[in-house]
C-alpha cells in the first residue's frame, strides 16, 4: 500500500509539474464549452451567411437547435480529445524506459506489477476526470439553454463512449509493456482502435466491436437501443482485462 501511494504520488507530481495536467484540463474544458457553443451559434452563423447562400440558391429557413445538436458535437469532438490524450500520455511508460529512471526504481526491489497498476490507474483517473468534466460542462450549458431530455439514452451513451476510452487506455498499457518508444504505443493503440473501427463497417462484425460504443449518436436519436450494445461492451471489457493481464506478464521479463 505504501508503495502504491508513493508511486501514485510520483505520477501525480509528474502530471502537474510537466504541464500534462494543464494541457488535458484545457482540452476537456474547452470541448465542454465548445459543444453547446457551436450548437448555440449555428443558427446565428447560418443567418449571417444567409444572403450569400441565397445567391447561390440555398434558402435558409428558420432552424431550431436543441440539446441534441450539442450532444452530437460532444460525440464528434470526443475522438479528438481522446487522440490528444493518447498523444500526451503515450510516453508514460516508454519515457521511463528510455531515460533509465525506471531502472533505478525497479532495482530497489519493488514488484514490477506495481508500476503497471499505478500507471494504468493514473491514466484511468485522468481520462475519467477529463471526460466527466467535459460532460458536466456540456450538460450544464445544455440544461441552461435547452432541455437534456431531448437526447434519449443519454447516460448510457456517455458511459459507452467513456468505456471506449478506457479500452483504448488498456491498449496503451499493453503496448507500453512491449514497445521501447512511444511511437510503438501510438501504433499499437492507434492500430487497435482503427481495427475496431474497421470492424464496424461490416454489419456482421459490428456488434462485436468496441468501437461501436462510439456510435452514440444513433442512441441519442433513439435509432438504436442499449440492448444492441451489450455484446460490444462485453467484448471491450474482456479484451481490456486481457490487455492489462498481458501487460502484467510481459513487464516481468521486459528488457530495460
Amino acid at each position: 500500500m505504501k508503495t502504491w501511494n508513493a508511486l501514485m504520488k510520483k505520477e501525480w507530481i509528474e502530471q502537474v509539474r510537466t504541464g500534462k495536467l494543464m494541457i488535458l484540463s484545457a482540452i476537456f474544458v474547452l470541448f465542454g464549452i465548445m459543444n453547446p457553443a457551436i450548437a448555440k451559434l449555428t443558427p446565428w452563423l447560418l443567418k449571417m451567411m444567409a444572403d450569400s447562400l441565397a445567391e447561390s440558391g440555398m434558402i435558409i429557413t428558420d432552424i431550431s437547435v436543441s440539446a441534441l445538436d450539442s450532444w452530437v458535437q460532444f460525440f464528434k469532438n470526443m475522438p479528438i480529445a481522446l487522440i490528444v490524450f493518447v498523444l500526451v500520455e503515450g510516453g508514460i511508460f516508454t519515457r521511463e524506459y528510455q531515460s533509465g529512471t525506471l531502472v533505478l526504481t525497479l532495482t530497489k526491489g519493488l514488484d514490477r506489477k506495481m508500476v503497471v497498476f499505478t500507471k494504468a490507474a493514473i491514466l484511468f483517473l485522468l481520462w475519467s476526470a477529463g471526460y466527466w468534466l467535459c460532460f458536466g460542462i456540456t450538460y450544464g450549458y445544455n440544461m441552461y439553454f435547452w432541455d437534456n431530455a431531448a437526447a434519449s439514452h443519454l447516460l448510457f451513451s456517455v458511459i459507452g463512449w467513456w468505456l471506449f476510452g478506457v479500452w483504448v487506455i488498456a491498449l496503451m498499457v499493453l503496448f507500453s509493456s512491449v514497445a521501447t518508444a512511444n511511437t510503438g504505443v501510438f501504433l499499437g493503440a492507434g492500430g487497435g482502435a482503427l481495427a475496431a473501427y474497421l470492424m464496424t463497417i461490416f454489419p456482421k462484425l459490428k456488434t462485436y466491436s468496441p468501437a461501436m460504443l462510439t456510435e452514440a449518436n444513433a442512441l441519442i436519436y433513439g435509432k438504436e437501443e442499449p440492448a444492441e450494445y451489450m455484446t460490444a461492451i462485453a467484448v471491450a471489457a474482456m479484451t481490456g482485462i486481457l490487455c492489462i493481464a498481458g501487460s502484467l506478464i510481459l513487464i516481468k521479463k521486459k528488457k530495460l
Partner: protein
Amino acid sequence: MEMLRIENLYKRFGDKEVLRGLNLSVPEHSIFGFVGKNGAGKTTTMKTVLGLLNVDAGNIFVNEMPVTYGQTETNRYVGYLPDVPEFYPFMTAPEYLAFCGEITGMKKAEIKKRTEELLALVGLEGESHRIKGFSRGMKQRLGIAQALFNRPKLLICDEPTSALDPVGRKEILDVLLAARAETTVLFSTHILSDVEKICTDVAFLDQGKVRVQGTLSEVKSVYRRESYLLETESPEEARGLSEAFPVLQYDGGCRLQFDETACDVSAVLRVLADRKISVVKLERQEPTLESLFMEVVER
C-alpha cells in the same frame, strides 16, 4: 560469507561474446574493485546481477539467493548506481530520496532522518532545485545517496568516480569507504589508484573472464616479482656490469634493471664491492596494481 557469487557466467550480444565463463565471489563487508578495460564487460556483469540482462549460462547469487532475469527478489538487498544515473527531472533531491524510501515502505520519520543524513554525506544538503538542472557530478552524488538509502546489503556502483573532479572523487571514495561498515561494496573502475586507495579486494576482468581475484595484498603477493633498479655514477661502470651479467637490462646510460628470479642480488652486490663501483641508487621496486593489471591484460 559471500554477498555475491557469480558462477560460470556467459553472455553474448549477437555474435559478440562478452562474458565467457566469468566467476566472481564478493565477500561480505569488502570493498571490491572490479577492474577492466573499456568494453571488458563490467557494466554487462553488473546488469546481470540486477536481473536487467538475460544471461546465456551461469548462476548468480546475491545473499545466497538466486538472481532471476526481470523481476527478481534479490534486488531488495541491492543498491545500484548505474554508470549514467537518471532521476525524475521534475523532483528535487530530497523529494527523490523520500520517494526511494516510500516505495520500499520505510517509515516517515526514518525517511526524513535518512534523507538529511545522506544529503549531508554526499554534499547536497540545502540543494532545493529540481534535478533537471543538476550537473553530472551532482547526479552522481545523488546516485550514491539513493543507492544507499534503503541500507542495502550489497552496493553496486558502476564507475562511480569517472564523472567527478579530483576533489569530488576523493569525497565519493570516502563515502564508499564509510559505507563499508554497513554494507558490501562492489564497484567497477579503470582508475587503479582508486582501487589502491580504498579496496580490500580486487578482480581483474579481461576477455570475458576474471583473470585474477583476491584481497589486495594476496593479489600483490602472488604477482610479486621483485625487481631492482641499480644506478651507477658513471656509464662505464654500468656497461661493465652489464657485460658481467648479461641478464641485466641495460638502458645504455647509468641504469640497470633486473628481476630477482633472473639474477642473484648478492652476486651483483659482490661485484659492486669487488670493483668498487660507486652506486647512486639501488632500489627494490614494489609492484603497483597498474603494472599487475597491465601484466594480466597483456598475457
